[in-house]
């Protein structure tokens, strides 16, 4: 007769106090933290760039003394230059995060299958929908607006260091601080970030879908259709509609906003402050653009598809 140890198992009373579920908000917050734990490049890379900007402020030399140097004797020119520097300083941060963020979105649902950790994530009471949404949230909200905040801080640090150097006499006073223009430039950058997120959202959704779908080489699968498609179309029909479409989905929002009408920098240096964009750019037209909303609908569809695919994905 086989005896089983299990027969002597205790009859423990179960705790009935345990709640049935966590609130989705709390789970989402945990999921977002998890993404930042795993993908440290999302915050490390911008921090490194911000540190480099501070380094430039400390040791950089100003080479404004060029032949076609702008007339910096006028205060309005110095304020315009101030706002342009504020804008230009943010650019490296945004450029870095476009690359890091794209790789993140393309990698996040693929890596969890490659290292088999998907079996751990799926052993917890978190739905596929919430998981995929957390990754989209990181890619489209946490990272872009986090970078916006970091750029703001980096610029303040940069300006403080520069101010200290001017006070010590090691730099000429080329920039004039204007709280009004500072605020307007930040507003322009916040709006630009906002519209960029809305416009590029379908690309994020597409990257997530590829990430959830492919069994290997996600970068290849993500880029190949956009290389082969236009080439095949050109060979087969001699037309370039696909190339035009891709170009539109990449650059279109700036045309809709009317970036071409801006008159901030001229050949002779700063012309107007960045803040003038608030009056020039067509934000209302962008927000009511049908293409922007079609893109958001496509984002929802792509995200839903990624969720459905993840449902039956295991570590194979």
């Amino acid at each position: 007769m086989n005896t089983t140890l299990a027969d002597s198992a205790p009859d423990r009373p179960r705790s009935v106090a345990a709640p049935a579920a966590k609130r989705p908000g709390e789970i989402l917050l945990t999921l977002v933290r998890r993404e930042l734990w795993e993908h440290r490049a999302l915050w490390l890379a911008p921090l490194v760039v911000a540190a480099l900007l501070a380094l430039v402020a400390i040791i950089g030399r100003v080479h404004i003394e060029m032949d076609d140097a702008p007339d910096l004797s006028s205060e309005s020119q110095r304020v315009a230059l101030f706002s342009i520097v504020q804008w230009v300083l943010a650019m490296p941060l945004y450029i870095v995060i476009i690359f890091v963020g794209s790789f993140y979105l393309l990698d996040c649902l693929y890596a969890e299958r490659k290292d088999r950790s998907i079996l751990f994530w799926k052993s917890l009471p978190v739905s596929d929908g919430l998981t995929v949404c957390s990754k989209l949230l990181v890619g489209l909200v946490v990272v872009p607006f986090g970078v916006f905040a970091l750029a703001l801080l980096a610029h303040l640090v940069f300006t403080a260091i520069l101010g200290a150097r001017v006070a010590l006499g090691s730099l000429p006073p080329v920039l004039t601080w204007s709280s009004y223009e500072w605020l307007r430039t930040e507003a322009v950058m916040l709006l630009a970030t906002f519209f960029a997120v809305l416009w590029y959202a379908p690309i994020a959704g597409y990257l997530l879908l590829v990430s959830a779908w492919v069994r290997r080489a996600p970068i290849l699968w993500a880029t190949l259709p956009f290389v082969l498609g236009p080439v095949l179309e050109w060979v087969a029909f001699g037309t370039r509609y696909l190339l035009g479409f891709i170009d539109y989905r990449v650059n279109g929002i700036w045309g809709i906003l009317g970036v071409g009408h801006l008159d901030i920098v001229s050949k002779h240096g700063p012309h107007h402050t960045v803040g003038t964009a608030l009056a020039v750019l067509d934000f209302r037209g962008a927000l009511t653009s049908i293409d922007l909303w079609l893109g958001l609908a496509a984002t929802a569809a792509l995200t839903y598809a990624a969720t459905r695919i993840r449902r039956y994905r295991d570590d194979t």
Partner: protein
Amino acid sequence: MTAVIEARGLTKNYRATRALDGVTFSVEAGRIVGLIGPNGAGKTTALKAILGLTSFDGTLRVLGLDPRTERDQLMREVCFIADVAVLPRWMRVSQALDFVAGVHPRFDRAIAENFLSKTDIRMTSRVRELSKGMVTQLHLALVLAIDARLLVLDEPTLGLDLLYRRNFYDTLLNDYFDKERTILLTTHQVEEVENLFTDVIFINHGQVALCAAVEDLSSRYQQLTLAAEQAAHARELQPFYEREIFGRVAMYFEGRSAAELGAFGELRTPTIADLFVAKMQGTGRP
């Protein structure tokens, strides 16, 4: 009492191969069920179906839920440790606790911390810095701290040394198992854990070869050991498997009484490991 797992006609095809072929079984609460089968028999596929990790045909209810569409709800009451450590290698021990605490309503962090304090695992270590045995301990710590009703273990101790293996199962029995909890376990080291099982399910070629409570095995199966010269007579009673060891023959019978067999030689209930080998090798023999 409703069944914890109720599977009927579970079928799953991977392209040309049929991993599960009409698998039917049920598991009740308070049992420790061994799911045993040779490599490629469909064990892992069956577990994945139960955990909502793969699609399948047939009906399957786990704790009254459909794993295909209600996995996230199901996982509030089900825990899972897989054959190789699946904890993400980049994660810190403290992050693992933070994460499970943040998503699992039935996780008691104090239990996990208490268990970990008795091991060599440090809170600041990353999973990739831990040995295989320690990763399994960490996973066990997380699972012990979750007030779940079903624990699914897929070769949990594969590749661990004897001390870790013994510790693992002792902890499961002492600190986890009770009459309302169910454990479903696959392992290749059947001899080591066979006195744990209350039930066994043998699975082969995607089909259930045997599904029985351990206490019923003694009345169903007999192992007869006898001298080779007498084998011909005993063979008339149609053993489903026999093997020869040192000039003696061991025969395995199903549904024969002790009175029928006792006269031929030494009679006993086969161990689960012996029965498994007999069932797997003997299939199709007279």
